[in-house]
């Protein structure tokens, strides 16, 4: 009887702690959650990944010239201000993202670069201001007979 009571108390305590503690997926204060999407686009006929259906921008010119879109990489990121975060690209280069600041109007200023270790920077500097939830794209790298299209979306609308 005593053991059963203790078990119930522990279960209740665990539920209470779970309700109070922040969820594991919740961003910590000062960090911006985001997502980096690496898409291989080809002009050759093929499939278009259904997960890209919500990216209407890829149906706009010049992206609509690609008849095949497949997701090669989809990585969640958490950016802290002035703390760069690297994402490995399928072609061996590294995409570096750095949140520079959150602007007074809520937009995010981000610094982007692409480089490969031991080589000159492929894209030394790209500075973008983006609204939370709205993506920006870096495209043009050749890969496996297609073109890499990198979409970066930070924050949520």
């Amino acid at each position: 009887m005593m053991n059963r009571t203790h078990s119930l108390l522990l279960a209740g305590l665990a539920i209470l702690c779970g309700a109070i503690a922040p969820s594991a997926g919740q961003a910590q204060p000062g960090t911006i959650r985001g997502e980096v999407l690496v898409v291989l686009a080809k002009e050759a006929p093929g499939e278009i990944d259904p997960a890209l259906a919500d990216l209407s921008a890829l149906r706009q010119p010049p992206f609509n010239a690609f008849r095949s879109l497949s997701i090669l990489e989809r990585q969640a990121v958490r950016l802290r201000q002035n703390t760069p975060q690297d994402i490995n690209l399928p072609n061996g280069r590294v995409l570096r993202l750095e949140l520079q600041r959150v602007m007074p109007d809520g937009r995010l200023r981000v610094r982007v670069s692409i480089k490969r270790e031991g080589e000159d920077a492929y894209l030394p500097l790209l500075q973008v201001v983006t609204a939370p939830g709205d993506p920006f794209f870096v495209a043009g790298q050749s890969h496996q007979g297609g073109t890499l299209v990198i979409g970066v979306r930070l924050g949520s609308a």
Partner: protein
Amino acid sequence: MTTETEEHLPDDTLQRFFDGEATEGEANDLQAQLETELELARLERLERLGGLLRDHADTLGADIDSNALFDGIQAGIDKAKSEGPRLRLIQGQRRQRAGVAVALAVAIAAAVALVFYLKPPADDNLAEAHPFDTTQEVIVHDLHPVEVHPPGGSEVEDVDFGGNTGTIFQVPGEHGQPLAVVWIDEEAHP
């Protein structure tokens, strides 16, 4: 014509003697001095002059209404009294002006109120002709506060293509917001 010399009695003394207002000592002295013909002659002239003045006064008095004269005098005194506060008027002009202004404002307000009070009731047709005078009940179902969002989309502030060339453009997003695209021409990096 006789002129007064220092030995003559002063006119005012003679006058008081003549009017019976001289003191007993003065009267005795005067009586002694009036014994001389010169002084008697002067006295006679004064008597004649006094008689003429009394006759003239009687003549004027017959033509003058003494009551009206005193009423006029009293009216003049009252007027002078009533005009006395003029001095205060000068000192208190601002106060009085303020008082006049307040009284004027009150009078105007009362007149306006009276006009509105006496105004005949508005014609119903006229009331319909003025939509601002009518009230309409509006039911608002959505009372959520208005949220202000930052400008949508993304834009490139700065770019360095390094040894490559590239293009910057925008494509419309889901809601038409501009989305930045950086397209790198990697001919130099196969």
